[in-house]
């Protein structure tokens, strides 16, 4: 029914021109630019990467070589690099974000809440390049000296910890991403938790539950899908995050960039684009391959964000139309 109503309105406006109809129609045309931008982006990336896709076919996704002189390109190391760093970000960042969200929404004294949520917002306002600068000049030495050196010392024989612990590697990149996704995941989960009806909490309180039991039974179980959505939203941020990762991941290419160890320099899809796109020759396979990586990133980001928006939306029930 809803589908029909939108189209019928449109047809109605077109058949009876008036200033108001024109106003509505022209604002619709501009509002629809979002659709055009997304569709156009997909088309541009497919078109630009066509030479590489035509030459390598499916093996573009599974190839590991990256040789500009020999014109052999494979995207696998960078896809895996993005996967590994984003996974670290989610595994480390999401539990901390949920702790913050629960603390902010349910437990903290009211006087602290405002201050704390302001601080979390500031964390989101710090430019990604400044995370990068700090990661490159400060944070990586924390990781190298206090995390990697002791780990190598004790468990150095494990293959996932092989390599030289200089702090420019998958682990540092993943950890800096975990810091960067905290504001997104924490603030969206907090919103989701605060949208849980009071009656849920009151029901738990009325049978003598402690605050934590209220959160666990009344709030968390109720907001599960929204929190999942917030997590996916954080994953989306981690997948697309560029400058901070580029500065701390070490910038390896080809088979050397395969994530076989956490303490190895690597590369993500976003970082190889930043490192090489400006220097790729027009019309070369190198350029087409980089655009191909851009296309994969586009597909990842689009899927992740559609799923996340759907989950978060459903929970927060954002409705159209003016508030009555």
């Amino acid at each position: 029914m809803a589908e029909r109503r939108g189209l019928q309105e449109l047809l109605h406006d077109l058949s009876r021109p008036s200033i108001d109809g024109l106003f509505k129609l022209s604002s619709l045309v501009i509002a629809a630019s979002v659709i055009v931008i997304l569709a156009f982006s997909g088309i541009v990336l497919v078109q630009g990467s066509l030479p590489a896709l035509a030459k390598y076919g499916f093996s573009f996704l599974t190839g590991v070589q990256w040789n500009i002189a020999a014109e052999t390109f494979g995207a696998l190391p960078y896809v895996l690099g993005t996967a590994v760093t984003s996974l670290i970000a989610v595994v480390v960042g999401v539990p901390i974000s949920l702790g913050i969200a629960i603390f902010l929404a349910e437990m903290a004294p009211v006087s602290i809440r405002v201050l704390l949520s302001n601080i979390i917002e500031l964390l989101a306002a710090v430019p990604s390049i400044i995370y990068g600068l700090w990661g490159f000049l400060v944070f990586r030495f924390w990781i190298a000296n206090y995390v990697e050196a002791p780990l190598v010392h004790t468990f150095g024989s494990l293959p996932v910890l092989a390599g030289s612990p200089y702090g420019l590697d998958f682990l540092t990149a993943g950890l800096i991403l975990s810091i960067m996704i905290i504001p997104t995941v924490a603030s969206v989960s907090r919103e989701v938790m605060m949208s849980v009806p009071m009656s849920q909490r009151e029901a738990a309180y009325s049978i003598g539950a402690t605050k934590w039991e209220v959160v666990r039974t009344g709030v968390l179980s109720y907001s599960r899908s929204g929190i999942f959505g917030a997590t996916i939203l954080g994953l989306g941020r981690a997948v697309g995050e560029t400058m901070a990762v580029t500065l701390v991941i070490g910038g390896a290419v080809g088979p050397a960039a395969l994530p076989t160890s956490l303490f190895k320099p690597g590369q993500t899809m976003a970082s190889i684009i930043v490192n090489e796109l400006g220097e790729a020759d027009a019309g070369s396979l190198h350029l087409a391959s980089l655009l191909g990586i851009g296309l994969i990133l586009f597909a990842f980001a689009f899927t992740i964000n559609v799923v996340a928006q759907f989950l978060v939306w459903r929970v927060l029930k954002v409705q159209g139309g003016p508030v009555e």
Partner: protein
Amino acid sequence: MSSSMRRFKDRLAFALGALCAILAMIPLLNILYEVVKKGLSTINLEFLTNIPGVVGQPGGGIGPAIQGTLILIGLTTLIGVPLGLVSGIYLSEFGNNSIGRIIRFLNDVLAEFPSIVVGVVVFTLIVLTFKTFSVIAGALALSIIMLPIVTRTTEESMKLVPNSIRDAATALGVKKWRTTLSVVLSTGRNGVATGILLSIARIARESAPLVFTILGSQYFFSNLNSPMDALPLRIYRLALLPYPYAQAQGWGAALVLILIVLALNVGVRLATRGRLYSMRSRA
């Protein structure tokens, strides 16, 4: 389960929550500390107004980068704000149907889209076609990033305007377009302005799409069709130079950038004082 055990768990949950909050604050406080400590000693009038020096030799400044960031903010606002305003108006006033829902959904998707992908698309469309890195390409990429933020905040603030105000205007025989622009939009103007400030803060800190659109430059702005510098780009280039003076300049540039972004954010916070939380946290 004994009640003391339950009380212990309750305390433990509180302590863990507080610990998470403290953990998240450590990086923020350390970043601010480092940026201020290392940046402050670099900043002086020469540093703020000069062009970058010869690579490898101390001296020079970030004048072109500051100028470039301001130009980018201006151009992007010029393109992104009108489009976002009109889109927001559509969604708020006419968007309660299937088309509106699709646009609103995709707008939220675009708002969370990786900025680097936007940069790659604009690079392919503009830089490759015109065979030159340009200010226009950079402003276009940033406008695409700005558009969904302005759209969403405009829609949200216009929806806060009560329907009775629309009805009152209609009852006086005012046309819908007139009502929307001079009654609804002007009633919700604080929220709309907040959204615009937020979107400016967001694009001022963008760096990834600039690397291959405006490229960076040693000189002040010359024309729209050539490369230009910007603060985030300058910080990136300086960070990669293996000289202590360059790193110090990087911290100095970072301090300037963070001051611009924080000024915008604090301005927003003072203007809204706790309202519009969702708007702020997700921009």
